[in-house]
Every structure is written in structure tokens, then in C-alpha cells.
């Protein structure tokens, strides 16, 4: 989806900043286990950076349901629709 592509671009910049790694490539299947340093604190940084970027707020249930980058993108897509 076109909307997804835009979200991936912005999310890639957020990931590059949070992990200080410009070579990180985001795919829908990517999970925390596959990225070195992606712990619960980095997870919070990513979430808060997304909330700031898109002007949205995730609730506890939504955050608990996130398993992969694809989940995050579709959640952002739903909340900004």
C-alpha cells in the first residue's frame, strides 16, 4: 500500500536514529530478536518517537500486541487513517 511505503520511510529514519545505524533495513517480518540492542527500553524509544512523529498515542493493549515491524506499521496506518 502507498500509505505503508510512506510509513516505512519515516520509520526507517526513526530506527536509524534510535539504533544509530544507518544500514538497518526494515521489513514487515523484522522482529526485536533480529536487531542487536533492541531491548524493552529501545522499544519504548521507538514507540515514543512514533507517537511524536505521527501525533498519536498507543494504549497498553496495542503495545502488547506488537510482534514485528509489520504489526507496528499497520497499527500506525490504522491510527492515522
Amino acid at each position, binding site marked *: 500500500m502507498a500509505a505503508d511505503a510512506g510509513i516505512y520511510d519515516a520509520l526507517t529514519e526513526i530506527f536509524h*536514529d*534510535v539504533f544509530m545505524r*544507518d544500514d538497518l533495513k526494515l521489513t514487515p517480518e523484522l522482529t526485536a530478536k533480529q536487531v542487536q540492542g533492541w531491548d524493552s527500553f529501545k522499544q*519504548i524509544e521507538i514507540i515514543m*518517537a512514533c507517537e511524536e512523529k505521527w501525533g498519536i498515542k498507543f*494504549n*497498553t493493549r496495542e503495545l502488547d500486541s506488537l510482534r514485528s515491524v509489520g504489526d507496528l506499521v499497520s497499527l500506525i496506518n490504522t491510527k492515522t487513517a
Partner: protein
Amino acid sequence: MTELHWLPTIPDWRQRLRDLPSDTATAWDKAVALANARLNFVHTNNLDETIRRLHPTGPEALPTKKVRLAVLGSSTLTHLLPAIRVAGLRRGIWIDTYENDYGQYLQELADPDSDLHAFKPTAILVALDTYHMTAGITAGMDQDSADAALAEMQDRVKQVWTLARDAFKCPVLHQATLPVHLPVLGNNEHRAPGSRAWFVSRLNQAVRAMAEVEGVDILSIDDRAARDGIGRWHDTALWHRSKQEVTPGVSPLYGDLVGRWVAAKQGRSYKCLVLDLDNTVWGGVIGDDGLEGIALGQGSPLGEAYVAFQEYARELSRRGIILAVCSKNEEANAVEPFEKHPDMVLKRGDIASFVANWQNKADNIRAIAQELNIGIDSLVFIDDNPFERNLVRQELPMVAVPEVSDDPTGYPVALADAGYFEGLSITDEDRERTSQYQGNKAREALKSAVTDLPSYLRGLEMELIWKRFDKIGQQRIVQLINKSNQFNLTTKRYTDEDIIAVMADPDAFGLQLRLTDRFGDNGIIAIIIGRLQDNKDLYIDTWLMSCRVLGRQVEPTTLNLIAQEAKKLGARRLVGEYIPTKKNGMVKDHYAKLGFTVMETTEAGGNRNILDLASFTPAETFIHVVEG
């Protein structure tokens, strides 16, 4: 507002961070510059990580003292530490931090073999979370048990302070307890002695009183959260998830509050506020609008806003901050409101150093520091004009220049939120400071260091967009012709009909000039009227310009344009005249400076000048000229 709104945004910040050189000496200075930007928490972490990779233990020779800050707390504080270190970097101070193992602050304080003791802190921040501080407090308590619980909590706080000071002999900063608890009674919560919300209010009051006796300083995040809204500081869901009492989003501000305390402890708070005048201290331009025309005082919302800003500046001065003035103006014009305007709050006597001239502000600010005999790094400069702010930031990076809009209601907020003048106490000497500086004022001639203006101007990407008079611009043209007093060679006033006549006259031209630069559009900044005489001389009937754009090479660029248009009419020479008035003394030698030959001078102080177009070579400037 919890962002660092007084700091400018740096557009290419991410790239500049990635480009930080590995050569450690220059990396530090460049990192200090990057720290002085409006950073969010992710960029704050990036900067901290980068500078620590380049400089694992900090630069060897710094004019500031390195600080080893132990942060003692009862919840997760890790996310606040990078922001504290970056707040140090912002002030040129290297801060190392230590955080106790989760919940173990008392044990580590008491155990001489702990990592805390091995760290050998030179400063301690006690940051106990609000849930920890209200453990056991419940609405079922009566007054006596609530009082006993309060006394017990005070004792525990005091015990932490005592342990810390006995072990490390260093200053202690105690974080006030965040008021996050919800009321159980309502407006009259204070009648529920066991209410946690009310307990936190009482505790903060009691701890402040105790801190006075013990010589401990307070980190007033409770006051700060009251201004920002507690929801900006504390996110309940996040507390449940990660035990972070202060949200990561607010960490840059939290870190800065700690950083300004660290700087104040080293005597590195700013000492002097340097004020621009036109559109900063009053609304409008005194040289053009005159005493009656500036916006100041009761009767208009804008005038009241300038009064409010002046009052805040005076309050700062009464608690020991030195005030100075740095204005592009004729000195007589600049001083007049201080002496004669009934609504001026600031008086001439409140200003320890008063500099009003047409030189560039970086040089003038150096002169002010020299005259007051204080470090240039103790000055804060406030100006509504982005050109001046950025010139000073580039030339004098050690001067603090708050980012402000053209709305004066934001000026006191910017100064207060930035915490430039963070003080730890107030003395009698503070209260008398301005008069001292007035008395000691050195009058010696000041040698001003040379500012690298050309490189600044080149980087401005200025465009001068010109066109002939037209219907759309007519109203603004007439307004400028009848309002401009200072940079106005002939001060001829014209009506709408006169302007229409210029547009219709084949032997005349009227030019309106707009200036843009990378900070934005300055609007119409100059008006020219040229009239071809029978002898093929082009007489410059009107040349007026906004003083805002002085010193930016607009004058020679405009002359190039006049010469070009005059040639189109078949002119052989330009004739420029200066007709003196009370207010236009600044342009007396305007034509001579541009290379005209003086042909005659009048008794009243005027002059008439000639430029031969055949031998005229257009000046090279950094301004790109476009017809638009």
C-alpha cells in the same frame, strides 16, 4: 512546553552529527554546538553516544570542572542520564554519571565497598519517585498518623543526605516529588490527611524547609510539571510498563534542569541580559515611528506585552542580573523613550551599558562585555530579528541567544524556561549590582575585534527582488514614503496620485525592492524614485531603506540597479542629494561612501553628489539580484 524551545533547530543536524570528526579537539567544540539545538530525546541519546565514543573520558583541558554525578533513585533512571550528560556538554562541561542498582540506593550509600563508593562522586542527585515516597500512605489515616508518616519520611530523606555528604563531601541536589497522585476528596483535598496527593504537597514543602537548614539544593520538577501539565512529565501506562517516572520524551528538559544546576555550582550561570530595542523592548522603530508612534503601554494588547517583558527584565535586574542595550539606532533616538516615554518600565539608570550605533552587533556585544568587564560567555542576547540572532550565534557562539518569535509575550517565557540565570541564592550585593556597574563603568576606548562578516553574508543566500512600482505594491510604497525617517536621503512625502504619476512618466522610474534570505522574507525594504533631467542627469529623487537590512550590502547592490535603470533611460550621470532632517543623520555621507563625488554642500549640512555612469563599475556583492 516541554521541548527546548529557546534553542534553535539546526536543519542539517543529523548529517552534522554523522560528520563529527574523529580528531578529538575539534569534535568537542562541534558537539557543543550540536548540543545547543532543539533536540528531542532520541537525538539527545545519539549525541551522547557519539561524543562518548569519540571521547571516552572527556577532553583533557577544559576551562570547566569535570563532574562525577551519582544519581540515586528508587525507579528506572537510565533514560535520563544521556540528557544530563548532554546538558553538561551544552555548557561545555564534561559529566560522568552513575546510577545505583535498581532500588539499592540506601545499601550502596552505606556500603564503602559498593560501586557507588568506587565511582567517587563529586555531586549527588537524589531522585526518589513519588510512589516510593508515598508508600504506606492511605486515605484511611487520621491527622496524627499522617503527621507521623510525614515526619518519618522527612527523617529518611535527611538520612540519605547525611550519608551522601558524610561519604563524599559533595553538593547534593534533591529532586522534588512529582505530584502524580489523583485526588480522593476533590477541591478540598487538604482535608483528607491521608490523601497521597496532599501528602506529596506537604512533603515538598517540608523537604524545602529542611533543605534550607541542611544546605541542600532542590530540583523543582514539581513546579516545572505544574507549568507543563503533569501529563507531559508522567505517563501512568509507562510507569506500569518500565517504572520510568519521568517520561523519556521530557528527558532533554529534565537533563537541562540538572545541567543548569551543575553550571551554577561552578559559577557558570549567565550574568547579563543584552536587549535589542526596536520590536524587542517596544513595538515599532523609534527612529521612524517616534515617541508617540511606538507600541508601548496600556491601551493596546501589544503595548502591554512589551511592558510585561520590560517588567520581567527589571525583576531580573533587581535580583542581580545586569542589563545592557545593543541597538541599531542613533543614540539620541534610542535613549529618548528611556527618558521621556511615560510607559517605559526600564529607565536609563537600569541599563549598565548602553550601545546604540550602526555597527554590527557582534562587535558591539564584545564591546559591552569589555566595558562591563565580564566574560563574553556570561551574556544573553535577545533580539526579535533572526538576522541579528544568527549573526551573533555564528560570530560569538559563547553568547546565549534565545530563539524567539515576533510575539513579545514569548520573551519572558524564553528567558525563564532557558534557565540562563539559574541562581542558588540571592545576596544584598545581587540586589545592588546594576548600580555598581553603572558606577564603575570604564570609559576607555574599546577596540572591537574584527568580525568575519563576509563569510556570514555569503552564507545568507540573499536575493534582492526588484520591480517597478505597481498597483499591488502602491499602498505599501506610499506608507513607506511617508513613514521612513532615518534611512531616507530626501524625506520627500508623496500621495497615491504622485506615485501613479511616477508610474505613468516615461522619463522616471520607481523601484520597489524586496530582500529574502535563508531565514525568510524581509518584505519591501527599499524604495527608489529616479527622474531624468533635460541635461541627461538622472536625479535620485527618493532613496529610502529599512534600517533592518543595514550592513548587508544592500546599498551598493541597489546602486548597481539604479545605474542599470538610469542607463536604460539614456542617462549619463547620477545625481544624488542628501537633504538633512532631525532624524536622517546616519545617511549624511551615503553617496560619498558609494563612490559619488561631492559637488556642493549646503549651510544646513546637506550635499549634492555626482556619479559618472560611463566610468562606473558595479560593485560585487553577495546579493543575487532578480527582477520579479
